[in-house]
């Protein structure tokens, strides 16, 4: 793989939704170039970070509209592709993990069946091979008793396990790019670490690209190489994760300062002055 050719190349991405008072842009001209690296997109609710993730997969629901000067994955322009080609691409080469496993898994099918479906949709394998891959994948996401878990239904597993199953489902077709949209915010802190460590390990092992979308600056700093801070549909700052504490933009600085610390000694937390950069 050459380092020069980016995996994902986005130029001037715009997403807008119509309202009675005219269209409202939620992503305003975003540029992004991603190699096989781990990129974090951070922002508060309404910053457009989730819409960016969805737009890359062309998953913006009507009546929302997206346009971009360039939206290329591995050199292929995605905007011209038919819906069918796009479906083949989703899952097989780009996968997305959503926030809450409860809404992403089908409640009336066994876990094993759903993971197998994800695989069969993209590869032609014999039944035995499919079964073997499913068990192998469940082991990879550290599920202790994969044969038994494969027989279970989604409501029989805990939130953390559900999210690991989602990861298994998303990674089994061996995609090149994984988009994780708040993958752990529905989970307890002790499980959060495990799930993120797992994603991290699998991404490094397979040399995938990762886009981690989150509202938590510190979490993103821990698991990514590069960080993009979004506010009101625009990228306000991009920096290397290790330089986060040296961030320049007042919004990034404000966000960092507003988080309570474990060794908190401040009497009052600093509050963002939103008027400073014309934010909403």
């Amino acid at each position, binding site marked *: 793989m050459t380092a020069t050719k980016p995996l994902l190349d986005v130029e001037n991405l715009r997403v807008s939704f119509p309202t009675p008072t005219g269209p409202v842009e939620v992503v305003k001209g975003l540029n992004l170039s991603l190699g096989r690296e781990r990129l974090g997109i951070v922002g*508060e609710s309404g910053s457009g970070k989730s819409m960016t993730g969805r737009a890359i997969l062309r998953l913006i629901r009507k009546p929302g509209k997206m346009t971009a000067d360039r939206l290329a994955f591995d050199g292929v322009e995605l905007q011209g592709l038919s819906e069918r080609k796009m479906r083949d691409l989703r899952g097989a080469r780009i996968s997305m993990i959503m926030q809450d496993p409860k809404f992403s898994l089908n409640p009336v099918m066994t876990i094993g069946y759903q993971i197998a479906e994800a695989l069969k949709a993209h590869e032609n394998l014999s039944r035995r091979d499919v079964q073997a891959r499913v068990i192998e994948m469940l082991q990879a996401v550290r599920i202790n008793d994969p044969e038994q878990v494969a027989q279970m239904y989604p409501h029989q597993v805990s939130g953390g396990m559900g999210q690991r199953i989602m990861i298994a489902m998303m990674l089994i077709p061996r995609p090149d790019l994984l988009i994780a949209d708040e993958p752990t915010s529905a989970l307890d802190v*002790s499980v959060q670490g495990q799930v993120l460590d797992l994603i991290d390990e699998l991404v490094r092992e397979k040399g995938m690209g990762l886009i981690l979308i989150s509202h938590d600056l510190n979490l993103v700093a821990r698991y990514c190489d590069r960080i993009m801070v979004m506010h009101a549909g625009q990228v306000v700052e991009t920096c290397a994760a290790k330089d986060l504490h040296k961030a320049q933009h007042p919004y990034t600085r404000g966000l960092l300062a507003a*988080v309570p610390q474990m060794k908190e000694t401040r009497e009052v*937390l600093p509050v963002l002055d939103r008027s400073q950069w014309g934010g909403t």
Partner: protein
Amino acid sequence: MGNPAILLKDLDISYGSTKVVRDVNLSVAEGESFALVGESGSGKSTVLKAIAGLAPDWTGQISVLGQPRGHGPDSGFAKTCQMVFQDPYGSLHPRKVVDAVLREPLKVHGLGNRDARIAEVLNAVGLDQRFRFRFPHQLSGGQRQRVAIARALMLEPKVMLLDEPTSALDVSVQAEILNLLKRLRAEQGLTYLMVTHNLPVVSFMCDRMAVMNKGEIVEIADAKQLHSGDFSHDYTRELYAASGAEAV
């Protein structure tokens, strides 16, 4: 005098036939800010609900400011103790404007001088008067949570039960709400019992904390101990490590 604001003795709470909280003993002093910490399913919110009267199936003893609690909500208790809920989207009636939400407690208790009281409490929670006749869907999450806090303050209670009041909010908004809660406590001499899973928030807001796991209190510690991480119980240390004690 000398009565603890909240006293729990041998408290067991059940939902149906399953016991979700066992043998909880706790005493929160007047004016103190106390945290109940734990992960989902640890029973921390259930304890809060039992005190409020929303989880009536309990045995043991609960008393608030020296008064033993009954098993359901009652209107005398409403004036001493109020609760703020986690979800700012679910805790306001979707068809009522802010003014109607704040007027309701005054009507229920037949209190007069309503317009002035509403204006005053809006002021106290830092909401501009122009929000007074908006519907919840016209407010942001942080503004809604301010309205929910204002509603709880309306009857001038002494004790406030806070159920993850900021976990559904963005960090910058969380900071505003935490500051607000801290200021209100200082101004009105409130006692807080706050449920949270976020240890840094405890460090900012609280004096002491009780760590719950699987329906039991495993450790009661001083919030200052969060600075050193010096805890006696394994589970607390685990939680402390998972909460990113070393980060940034």
